[in-house]
């Protein structure tokens, strides 16, 4: 009983000393993150800070230069391919584009993981798929092809597919980007409702501050390869960090400069034009 409750208290995802770089560019430089079970955790930061990369590191699609990523007590990057695939059946991921298989209908997309990983009879798979589609409000769209869906609908179908196997956690990669207000509202509510109804753990990577903060229990803010802020949305609002304030309030200038690094304007204008000539 004691070990069970302590396991429940352990974070589902534990990241320690994570370092990752692409070429000469350092994306993460000693990042520590704990993602608690059963909560909605948001990872926020400006574009290009490696938020999607972080999800790929958690899912074992990328390998870190140093540090560890543990999911449910398993070191993701020490697992064999078979063990990693087994772990992934317990993780859902919603890609920014939806990543639906374009040659399959909505129904077949949602049924895909069930057909791949279970031996359930077709009638049972049909029932499960219809239930998942009902949960995202798209049961009536089951015969449509992905090309016939709007961006918001495609993400909802992808969400239904992501929860088809009732995973322990689901990762959302920029779920609100490019959505109209209605689709965004639907997604915001769905993420929270699904998390609470299934006691899942949700990780949202986003730079849509208001929408993400609205449904998150815990927020991490990442910048320049480090965690620059951590806390509930309320505690971060009153953060003393100039950087965190600039990000949350969307100020054009501050610690993150409006200008991309460049020599002084006067020097640039008077400089030799030959280099810039096409």
């Amino acid at each position, binding site marked *: 009983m004691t070990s069970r409750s302590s396991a429940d208290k352990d974070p589902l995802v534990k990241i320690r000393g994570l370092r990752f770089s692409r070429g000469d560019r350092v994306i993460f430089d000693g990042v520590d993150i704990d993602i608690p079970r059963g909560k909605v955790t948001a990872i926020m930061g400006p574009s290009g800070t490696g938020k999607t990369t972080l999800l790929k590191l958690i*899912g074992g*699609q990328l390998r870190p230069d140093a540090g560890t990523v543990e999911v449910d007590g398993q070191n993701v990057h020490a697992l064999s391919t078979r063990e990693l695939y*087994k772990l992934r059946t317990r993780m859902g*991921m919603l890609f920014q584009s939806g990543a*639906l298989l374009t040659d399959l209908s909505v129904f077949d997309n949602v049924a895909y993981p069930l057909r791949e990983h279970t031996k359930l009879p077709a009638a049972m798979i049909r029932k499960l798929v219809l239930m998942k589609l009902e949960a995202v409000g798209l049961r009536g769209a089951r015969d449509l092809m992905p090309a016939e869906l709007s961006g918001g609908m495609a993400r909802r179908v*992808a969400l239904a597919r992501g929860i088809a196997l009732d995973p322990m956690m689901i990762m959302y990669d920029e779920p609100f980007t490019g959505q109209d207000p209605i689709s965004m509202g639907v997604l915001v509510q769905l993420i929270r409702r699904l998390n609470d109804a299934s006691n899942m753990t949700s990780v949202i990577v986003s730079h849509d501050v208001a929408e993400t903060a609205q449904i998150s229990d815990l927020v991490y803010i990442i910048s320049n390869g480090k965690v620059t802020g951590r806390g509930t949305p309320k505690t971060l609002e009153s953060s003393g960090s100039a950087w965190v304030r600039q990000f949350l309030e969307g100020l054009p200038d501050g610690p993150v400069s409006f200008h991309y690094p460049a020599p002084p304007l006067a020097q640039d204008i008077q400089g030799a034009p030959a280099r810039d000539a096409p």
Partner: protein
Amino acid sequence: MNGVAPMLGWLEQLGRIGLRVIERLGRAHLLLVGIAGGLGSLIVRPGLLVRQLLSVGVLSALIVTVSGLFVGMVLALQGYYVLSKFGASESLGVMVAASLVRELGPVVTALLFAGRAGSALTAEIGLMKATEQLSGLEMMAVNPVNRVLTPRFFAGLISMPLLASMFSAVGVLGGYFVGVGLLGVDDGAYWSQMRATIDLHEDIYNGVIKSLVFGAVCTWIALYQGYDATPTSEGVSRATTRAVVHSALAVLGLDFVLTALMFGG
């Protein structure tokens, strides 16, 4: 001393290009091993192969047969012109059949295959990568190489000899229409000389071996280029062009090597 620096820079550049080529070759071979490793799961799900045989093979059949017809007709016209000068126009059937079965059937079919099916495969895989469908499969604990690439590779391997056979057969008929129908070559001589001279092992089997090799190489190149494409519209477009160019060069180069090995001695 001044002349050494540019030379070193040039050598460095050459070395970098060489390393890049070796790295790509390594990745391509690793991918081929991965594709072959998926054969077991393909046997369990033959439906995946059948669907690809339709899109890679059956849908290429029309362009291959139409091209075969015209190539056979042109061969008859050109062959008759040369053979009649030596009073050997009765051998037209042999010339048309041997040219098609030994060379033009496998080679032209492979070039058409690279343009029609190979480019489509590269674009399809490249776009699946760009739209994160391959990553999506990985995150659903499904190996994208086994599930997406292996069926396409074996569909290409099986389709190519069949398509080349169709090309040659239709080409022989095209040669017959022109040679016998238009140019007045004797009907019996056209077929009987062909049957007497074309050898099952020497000509037909060697042609089939060539098309199997071309099928494997063209499909491998197309799949690798798609899988390794930069996931942007420009990257996929470049990969598609590279797939066709590399396949065409590989087919022509390999044809020389195979011809030398099979008929050279």
